[in-house]
């Protein structure tokens, strides 16, 4: 067993990293914040997959590499495997984690902002709060998406990764392999 730190170290570092980029540096440019956060994840995934595959033979095909991400790689990071893997056999893979750890720790506070509008515009304000909440949650997903993309790129597979949280607390990562 290697060295460990408390989970709160990683959680608070991630929360702070996202807030630094999304709320402080690029508050008005969410696409830029997203790109930076994804890029930090990419570096981490690239390095981790380098370390975790050091003593392994090369993967024969894409599916083998994806299975490695679902099992070994995910277990190293989250102490559990991906719960469900689907593919259309044409380069798209959907990895579902039924209870994605990094989302269960982020409670998106739905209480209305005290400075926000109230009364007659309540509906509008609720909608915008929900919208904001969705945007905040999605900011936190660029990091794990980046990790998966970095890990696969290190295995020689270039791809695009996105996340779907319409089924919380489950989270699905959609990997589209570039041909």
């Amino acid at each position, binding site marked *: 067993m290697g060295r460990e730190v408390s989970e709160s170290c990683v959680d608070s*570092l991630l929360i702070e990293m996202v807030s630094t980029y999304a709320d402080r540096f690029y508050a008005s440019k969410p696409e830029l914040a997203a790109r930076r956060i994804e890029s930090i994840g990419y570096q981490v995934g690239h390095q981790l997959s380098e370390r975790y595959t050091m003593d392994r033979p090369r993967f024969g095909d894409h599916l083998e590499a994806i299975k490695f991400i679902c099992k070994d790689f995910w277990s190293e990071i989250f102490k559990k495997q991906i719960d469900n893997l689907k593919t259309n056999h044409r380069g798209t893979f959907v990895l579902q984690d039924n209870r994605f750890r990094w989302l269960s720790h982020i409670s998106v506070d739905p209480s209305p902002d005290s400075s926000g509008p109230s009364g007659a515009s309540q509906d509008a304000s609720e909608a915008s709060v929900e919208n904001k909440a969705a945007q905040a949650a999605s900011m936190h997903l660029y990091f794990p998406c980046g990790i998966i993309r970095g890990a696969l790129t290190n295995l020689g597979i270039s791809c695009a990764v996105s996340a779907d949280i319409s089924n919380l607390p489950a989270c699905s990562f959609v990997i589209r392999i570039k041909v």
Partner: protein
Amino acid sequence: MPAVAPRSGDAIFASAERVNAELFTLTYGAIVRQLITDLEEVDEVNKQLDQMGYNIGVRLIDEFLAKSNVSRCVDFKETAEVIAKVGFKMFLGVTATVTNWDAEGTTCSLVLEDNPLVDFVELPDTCQGLHYCNVLNGVVRGALEMVSMKTEVTWIRDMLRGDDAYELQVKLLKQIPEEYPYKDDE
């Protein structure tokens, strides 16, 4: 009689949810690298790392107080010991040593010989002046501010710069008296 503060964070760390330190170390490293790319100025990177640490400290103090059962420390000396032995241990899994007290008992050093933040880190020459671990600085300052102690935290020794340990000097600037009762939200 208030509960006596634990002298070690071993038990708390052992029972905490823990993760692979590699993930933590590499994530921190990737953040530092990205900040260097985005901000270019090393001083600005130091400042941002400190700010991030401060925000983290402000949040972590609640978890610290809840899990450690530490009630009120009688003085700054005891506070420093608790940070070193309980605080560092329960989050990072390592303990610090408290040393170099000044005569007034308001300045001391936290010395870390083992620091998970720097595993696999080597600084290139272009990063002269970077306080790689500056986040720790901010965490200590932020957490202490939440328990009414205003401090100044500076690096004295840094192994990434060739020193034999990490030494953080913590200087107590002032202790803000707490106000009771807390005001209800109005």
